[in-house]
């Protein structure tokens, strides 16, 4: 399958570059071990049950956070994208809240919901809502007016317009938002585990091995795993998207 081959070419190229940089002494090996070493560590880690538990904890938190974000952002985006006055009225609050970094909110979230998995889920939801929300609002602004008129002339009421025209039209772009959010949510979950600590999780693992000092290979192995998970998630979503939105590929519709 040539596409898979091309996929691998990119990844392998990057790892070779990294290896070369370390081997040539461009970067000190103690701080940035070469991928050959990191990959060995990665494989080792993957056979440890404790580590796998960390990974699973992270993945579960991620999945929950993403689902919640979709549940919040898609309807909200549809409503805000459709109702101009509501969009205007909430813009100040939304634009004000959005750039507040989730890391800045960590201490507050810890205080309010405690340091359990709820904290990382809450923060991940907070961060993952925006890409979906914004892509939804944008996509709605792009609907072909003729299409909207058509639906209205068919006796479609506002709510139905939302579900039967706005949603399918926006779906491909919202899906891009979901893909971005999936990455963001994973980042935040791992980051919160890393910055704020957790009972288990990939971020916690990275924190533990990094705070002990010189285990950069394990730190990077953890990071590589985070990246790999992200890659797999993205790949899965992309394939789903291609299948779901064949019509979009074929027409490339914009107005």
């Amino acid at each position, binding site marked *: 399958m040539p596409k898979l081959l091309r996929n691998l070419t990119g990844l392998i190229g990057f790892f070779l570059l990294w290896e070369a940089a370390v081997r040539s002494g461009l970067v000190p090996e103690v701080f940035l071990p070469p991928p050959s070493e990191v990959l060995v560590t990665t494989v080792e880690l993957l056979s440890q049950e404790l580590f796998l538990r960390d990974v699973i904890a992270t993945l579960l938190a991620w999945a929950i956070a993403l689902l919640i974000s979709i549940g919040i952002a898609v309807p909200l985006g549809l409503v805000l994208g459709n109702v101009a006055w509501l969009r205007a009225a909430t813009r100040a609050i939304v634009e004000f809240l959005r750039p507040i970094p989730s890391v800045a909110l960590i201490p507050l979230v810890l205080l309010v919901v405690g340091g359990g998995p709820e904290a990382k889920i809450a923060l991940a939801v907070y961060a993952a809502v925006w890409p979906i929300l914004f892509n939804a609002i944008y996509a709605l602004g792009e609907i072909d007016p003729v299409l909207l*008129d058509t639906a209205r002339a068919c006796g479609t009421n506002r709510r139905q317009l939302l579900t039967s025209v706005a949603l399918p039209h926006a779906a491909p772009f919202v899906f891009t938002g979901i893909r971005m959010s999936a990455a963001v949510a994973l980042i935040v979950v791992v980051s919160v585990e890393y910055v704020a600590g957790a009972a288990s999780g990939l971020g916690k693992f990275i924190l533990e091995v990094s705070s002990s000092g010189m285990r950069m290979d394990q730190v990077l192995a953890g990071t590589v795993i985070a990246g790999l998970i992200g890659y797999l998630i993205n790949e899965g979503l992309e394939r789903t998207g291609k299948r779901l939105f064949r019509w979009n590929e074929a027409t490339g519709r914009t107005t």
Partner: protein
Amino acid sequence: MLEVSGLNHRYGQGERAHVAVRELSFSVEAGELACIVGPSGCGKSTLLRCIAGLIPPTEGSVRLHDDEVTGVPDDLAVVFQDYSRSLFPWLTVAKNVEFPLRWKKIGKRERAQRAQEALDAVGLAGVGTKFPWQLSGGMQQRVSIARALASRPALLLMDEPFASVDAQTRFDLEDLLRRVQREQQSTILLVTHDIDESVYLGDRVLVLSSSPASIVADLTIDLPADRDQIATRESARFVALRGEVARLLQGKQGQPGTATDEAERELTASPGDVPH
């Protein structure tokens, strides 16, 4: 049934405003099929949009069954001029046709069947499972006609619905439309550029002036209700009427028969060539 009075529509505001429709008044009886002809860009589509309640008129009013139209009225269907943009690309052809039935209390089975019938009627049996972008232009246009018919509207607005189909199909569709009008007692407003078509199809022909649209003439077509593509088009009355419409379009409503100038001659060019 439909009463348009003092209708004005202006696009934009201030200096760059463009008046598309000016002081338009007419009414259409229930069950009537009125054709609208007028030069390109005169404001026909704008008029239809106002009637459909899709854009609010700047001045004047549209009344349907004595109620002022403010939103989109019930029991209405529109065939847009921009047919390819008015089909939902994510729905199959059949689902597109079913679309207006979704909100009606119609069982799934019947919905599918009605869509199928409508597609058959426009000569598109067998493409129901395709997507609109897999169809040719004329087929897409017929899908949007089928969609309008499937909803069995009381008022049907059609904006150049047959522009992209071949002559034969066009004749078939014209006859289909008159049949639907008779059987379902629909009121139909149809914009066309084809003078013959307007006379053949219509119970009335409204001739609009060039931009901004206002009514030049409101012609009653006194042809028999039962029409035939050959016989009707051959009849002397038909030929006379189409000459009249053509003359009116040229802005010579006053003195019929005195057609002298170049422009007029061009239009009424070949009375012998009418498809009989």
